[in-house]
C-alpha cells in the first residue's frame, strides 16, 4: 500500500537530517512585490524554528527519495541499509514547499536525494522541482539543491539558474577515507564538479560588456560538508582540507558534521557518541580562518597530535601558546592584532576602534561594550591597566579551563 504523504514526509525528512547545512543567507534580494508571486529573500537568513538538537530549521530539508544505488557506509540511505524507503513526486515536493512557506514555517527548500537509476536521471528530477517552483509557481524563496555526484555539467548548469545555492559533499577529509567508506564516490570527480561550478559562477559574476548586468547563477554560491569522527583523520587534516576547498573552489561554507549514530548502522563503522565538542571546535577554527586572519597552520601548530584542544577554544589555545604576542595595547593595536585577543570578536573590535578615536579606553569602557573583562584583561593593556605578571603566569591556562561540572553539557 502506498504510504501517505505524512508517512513519506517523516521518512524523507528523517533521511535528510544528517546534512548539517540549513543556511538561507548570502543570496540576492528578491521580493514577491516585484513578481506578484510568493516569497522573498532578504540577504540574511531566518531560522524559523529550532529543534532540541540545537539546530536551526530554516529550510524544508528533505530527500526526493531515499532509495539509493550507492553504498556509503556512514549514510542512513545506503543501499545495504534496511531503512524504510519512500519517494516524493515532483508535485508533492512543490506543494509541501509552497504550503509550508505560506505559513511562514520555512525560508525555502533544501532538496537532496538518493541516487536512483542514474545520476543524470536523479539530477534531472531535482531540476524539474526547482524549475516548477520558480517558473510554474512564481516562487522567490530560497532554494538549495544538492548536486548529485557525476551528474552532467549541463544539468548542474540548469540547476544553477533556479537554485540559490548548490552543494556537493566532500563527505570525508581524505581520498583514502572516501575510498574506504564510500566506494562508489570518486573524490576526483567531486573536486572536478566543484571546480567547474566555480568557473561558471565566476563567469556569471563578470558583468557582460553590453549590459553591465550580472547573470543570476547560484547567487548564494556553493558549499560542502565533511563528516568528522567516522575516519581517523585528525583536525589538522580536516582543516587543511577545508582551507583547500575554500581556496580552490571559493566555497561559501564548509560544514562539519560530527559522525552520528544512524538507525541500522553499517558494521564497518562504530556506533559512537557524536563528537560534538570536536565539531564545535572545528567550526570555531573555521571561523578564525575565514574572519580573523588566522592561517590554518597557526591554529593547529601547537597541538601535538593535530587535534584541537577540546577544553579551550582555538583562539584562546593559540594565545596561550603565543604569549610573546601579548599584551596588546587596546588603544593602539591594529584591528588585525585585536582580532587575536581571546574574548574580542570582530564586532567588539569595530566598536573599540570607533570609540578609541575619541577617547583613551579603560577596562570599564570595554565592559560597556559587553566584553568579558575577566577574559581579555590578561591580554590587554588599557588606560589605567597593565596585566603585570598575568601573561607570564604559568597557571594562566588554569584560569581559563572550564569548571569540571560544565563538562557534562557537552
Amino acid at each position, binding site marked *: 500500500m502506498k504510504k501517505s504523504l505524512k508517512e513519506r514526509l517523516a521518512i524523507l525528512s528523517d533521511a535528510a537530517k544528517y546534512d548539517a547545512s540549513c543556511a538561507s543567507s548570502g543570496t540576492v534580494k528578491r521580493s514577491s512585490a516585484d513578481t506578484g508571486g510568493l516569497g522573498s529573500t532578504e540577504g540574511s537568513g531566518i531560522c524559523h524554528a529550532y529543534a532540541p538538537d540545537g539546530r536551526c530549521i530554516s529550510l524544508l530539508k528533505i530527500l526526493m527519495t531515499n532509495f539509493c544505488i550507492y553504498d556509503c557506509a556512514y549514510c542512513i540511505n545506503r543501499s545495504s541499509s534496511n531503512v524504510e524507503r519512500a519517494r516524493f513526486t515532483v508535485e508533492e515536493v512543490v506543494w509541501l514547499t509552497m504550503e509550508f512557506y505560506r505559513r511562514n514555517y520555512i525560508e525555502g527548500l533544501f532538496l537532496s536525494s538518493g541516487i536512483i537509476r542514474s545520476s543524470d536521471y536523479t539530477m534531472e528530477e531535482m531540476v524539474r522541482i526547482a524549475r516548477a517552483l520558480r517558473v510554474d509557481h512564481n516562487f522567490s524563496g530560497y532554494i538549495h539543491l544538492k548536486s548529485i555526484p557525476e551528474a552532467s555539467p549541463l544539468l548542474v548548469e540548469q540547476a544553477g539558474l533556479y537554485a540559490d545555492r548548490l552543494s556537493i559533499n566532500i563527505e570525508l577529509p581524505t581520498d583514502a577515507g572516501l575510498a574506504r567508506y564510500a566506494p562508489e564516490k570518486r573524490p576526483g570527480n567531486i573536486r572536478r564538479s566543484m571546480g567547474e561550478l566555480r*568557473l561558471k559562477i565566476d563567469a556569471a559574476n563578470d558583468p557582460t560588456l553590453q549590459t553591465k548586468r550580472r547573470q543570476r547563477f547560484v547567487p548564494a554560491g556553493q558549499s560542502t560538508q565533511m563528516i568528522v569522527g567516522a575516519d581517523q583523520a585528525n583536525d589538522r587534516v580536516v582543516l587543511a582540507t577545508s582551507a583547500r576547498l575554500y581556496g580552490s573552489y571559493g566555497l561559501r561554507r564548509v560544514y562539519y558534521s560530527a559522525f552520528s549514530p544512524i538507525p541500522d548502522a553499517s558494521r564497518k563503522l562504530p556506533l559512537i557518541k557524536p563528537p560534538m565538542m570536536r565539531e564545535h571546535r572545528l567550526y570555531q577554527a573555521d571561523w578564525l580562518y575565514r574572519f580573523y586572519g588566522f592561517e590554518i597552520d597557526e591554529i593547529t601548530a601547537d597541538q601535538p597530535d593535530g587535534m584541537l584542544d577540546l577544553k579551550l577554544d582555538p583562539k584562546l589555545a593559540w594565545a596561550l601558546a603565543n604569549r610573546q604576542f601579548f599584551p596588546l595595547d587596546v588603544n593602539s593595536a591594529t584591528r588585525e592584532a585585536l582580532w587575536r585577543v581571546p574574548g574580542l570578536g570582530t564586532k567588539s573590535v569595530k566598536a573599540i576602534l570607533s570609540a578609541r578615536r575619541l577617547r583613551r579606553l579603560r577596562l570599564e569602557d570595554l565592559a560597556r561594550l559587553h566584553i568579558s573583562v575577566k577574559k581579555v584583561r590578561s591580554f590587554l593593556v588599557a588606560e589605567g591597566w597593565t596585566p603585570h605578571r598575568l601573561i607570564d603566569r604559568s597557571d594562566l591556562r588554569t584560569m581559563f579551563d572550564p569548571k569540571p561540572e560544565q563538562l557534562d553539557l557537552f
Partner: protein
Amino acid sequence: MPVVTLEGRGDFTEWREAARRLLISGVPPEAVDWRENADAGSDLFDRGADGRQVPAPTVSATSTLTVPKSFLDTAAAAICHADPARFAILYRVLNRLQRDRNLLSLTTDEDVAMLNGLVKSVRRDSHKMTAFVRFKEVGHRAGSERRRFVAWFEPDHYVVARVAPFFQRRFFDMDWMIATPRGVAAWDGAVMEVSSAPGQKSPMSDDTEDLWRTYFSSIFNPARLKVRAMQSEMPKKYWKNLPEASLIPAMIAGAEASVAAMAERAATDPPAFHARVRPAPDGQGSVVPSSRMTLEDVRAEAAGCTRCPLHCNATRTVFGEGPPDAPVMIVGEQPGDQEDLAGRPFVGPAGKLFDTVAQQVGLDRKSLYVTNAVKHFKYEMRGKRRLHQRPDAGEVEHCRWWLDLELALVKPRLVVAMGATALFALTGARPKIADVRGQILYPESGPGVFVTVHPSFLLRIPDAGRREEETARFAQDLARVAELAAHPSIGQAR
C-alpha cells in the same frame, strides 16, 4: 518640571515633535518627566505637572535643529522598545549631540551603550517576529480568489510597523493579517494597513500544521541533544504560539531511549535490492597494451594518475591538448589555478598572454600541441589563495612518464620549452635560461628543443617598461618558432 506623556507605541513622530519643542525651548534632559500612557491623546501632551502648558517654542521649529542621519535611524528603532526609559535616554543623547556631533561613535559612552542596547533588542525582537509568526489559513474572502491567512504573535516591543513591510515583500499573493497585543498589520493585495492598537487573538486551526509537526519531529537528531542551544535561540516565551513547540518536551524525553535503541540493534543483512542495484563496474582498470595506446587512451589513464602525491591536493590532471599530429609541441611548467579548475592547459593569465603573443606573430594556438612538464597543480595556501609552487625534480621525474608518451605519440618536429622546469623535463639539464634562450638544444633522443621563457615570468615583472621589453623578446622567440614551424626540416638538423 514639564511632563510629557506619549502614547509610546512605536510612533517615532510623537517623540520627535515633543523632543524638538523641548530642545528648542532649551529644556535640559534632567528637567523633563517623560511618561507613557497608552490612552494619551494630544490634550495630555506638553502639560506641566501642575497642568501648565510647556511654553511654545519662540523660534521656528526648522531653525537650527540638525542631527546626524545615523541618529534618526537609531532613534526610530529605539523608540519601538517597550522600556519607558527610552524617551529620556533618547532626549539625553539628542541634547548631547548638539554639542558633540561624534557622540554616537563613542560606543563606550554610557548613554550610547544604553541606546545601542535598546536598538539591539528591538532588532532581535523584529527578527524573531519574521521567524516565529505562524500563519493559519482561513476561508476566502467573499468574491475573492485570494487565499487568506491570519496569525497571532506576541512581540516584546512595538515592532509590528517595522516588520510589516517584510511580510508584504514575502507574501504578496495572499491576504494576511498579523494581530499582536502591540499592533496589527494586514495586507489585501492593494493596501497594507498597520495600526498600533492591540489586536484580538482568535482560536483557529490549520490542517497543514500536522505535517509541519511531523517534519519538526523527524528532522530532529536525538543523538545530538542540545536543549540549551535551542532555548537560547527560541526562548520559551515564544512557544505558546508555535504549533511545533508542544512536541518538544516529549522529543527531549525520548531522545536517550531512541539512541539506545539504535545502539542495541545489531547490524542487519542488506535488503534484497542491495545486490541488484550495485552499479556496474565502470570499466576503470582495463588496460590497453602500451604498444597500441592512442593519445586518448593515455589521456584517460593520466586522469587517474597517482604517481606522485600532487594529485591529492589538485582538482584534476591537466593533460596536453591540440592536434595529435601537431608539428610543434609547447611545454610549460605546470597547470595553474584556472587550468586546475578547467582541466585544460594554458587557460589562465599566462595562457592568455601566450595566446595573444602567439597570435601577433602568426602562430595559431589550434595548430599547436600545448602541454606542461607536470600535469597536476602544485600550490600552497596563503590565506584563501592558492599560491603557485615550483615542482621539484622528483615530481618532474614522475611526470616525465606522461610527457614522454605525449612526445612519442604526437611526434612533433619541434618542441618549445618555456622556462627552466620544461627545459629540465625535456633535456635533463638545468642551464640558465638566459644562456640558452633562442637556441635549439638537441637531447639524446627526440626532436630539437627551442628554449624561451615562461609567459608567467613576464606577468611577474613589476616595471611596465621592462615588461614591455621582455614581452617583445618573447614575441621574437615565438616568431622564430613560427618561422621554424613553416620549415620542413626543422628540428631534424644536427
